[in-house]
């Protein structure tokens, strides 16, 4: 495994697990295509998601920006982007003064370097997205 942090791909998360992610309307092209920008960060190589078996798309949306949409990615497809480099790890958030507990929170693990792999992974992640709840402008 080539994950250079304490976060490692968690084999207890089955390939069939749905990963739910909110997408802001400004990161949606032509009304329904998720931009790769939704899977990039200036500071953090990893991407926050929630495990579909432990929450619902509606609850995922409530915890994030209300005008966002929710997409689903299959864990197995995410791992398949680059096995050993891209993985999924549980990252439950404990209750605190700042936020409510979120046992469904997980992370798509990547590395910022090499830059080429990071960008290609972002591109492929965007292509794997399936809408569960459309972004605000697309809702009826």
């Amino acid at each position: 495994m080539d994950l250079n942090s304490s976060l490692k791909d968690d084999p207890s998360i089955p390939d069939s697990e749905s990963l739910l992610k909110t997408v802001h309307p400004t990161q949606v092209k032509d009304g329904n295509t998720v931009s790769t920008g939704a899977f990039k960060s200036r500071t953090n190589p990893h991407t926050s998601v929630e495990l579909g078996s432990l929450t619902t798309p509606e609850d995922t949306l409530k915890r994030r920006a209300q005008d966002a949409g929710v997409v689903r990615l299959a864990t197995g497809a995410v791992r398949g982007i680059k096995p050993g480099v891209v993985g999924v790890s549980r990252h439950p958030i404990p209750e605190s003064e700042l936020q409510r507990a979120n046992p469904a929170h997980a992370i798509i693990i990547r590395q910022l370097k090499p830059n080429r792999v990071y960008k290609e992974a972002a591109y492929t992640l965007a292509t794997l997205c399936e809408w569960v709840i459309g972004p605000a402008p697309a809702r009826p």
Partner: protein
Amino acid sequence: MTTLAPSRDRIVTSDVPGFPEIAHIITMDTQRLMRRSVRAEAEAAVSCVTDLTTMPGVRANGRDWLCQALNRLESVAALPPGWDGEGGPPPSPQIVASAAILLYYLQQDDVPVPFICPIAGGALQMEWSFAGREVELELLDQQTVAFLRVESGTTGRTFESGEYPISDINRSRELLDWLART
């Protein structure tokens, strides 16, 4: 860091790192930019991109393209703090200013108007998709463009990526020329 003098209400683009050799003037409310309020910074950035279309050198056939692109940039620049639901900052005014200047120099009507979107952590990217080819220019700071170009063919996708100084306008133009090439 952009070295803006608080007493001026106009800056030259040489104040924006990455464009030291360019002498055009951008109108910018530097008083607002210098305020600590993030909202004020966003407003200042919007002021910057709005005024850019009146600059000399905007070609007649590039004006519509540039106006549409700057409108998209404006909507991204005006995002509030926490836009991503995780408390993240909007694109920094400095990056927005650099993006506006880059668009000004790229103005061309033979490729589509770019899709522009924020990136978590205060950055942004521009994207073009045309005839099975895609180009992304990511502005992570004021000095550097990170690019990804993708070509989809019958055997799959091919990727190329890298970084170059934002002042290398020719490199940005080459990428868009590749996009438009048949």
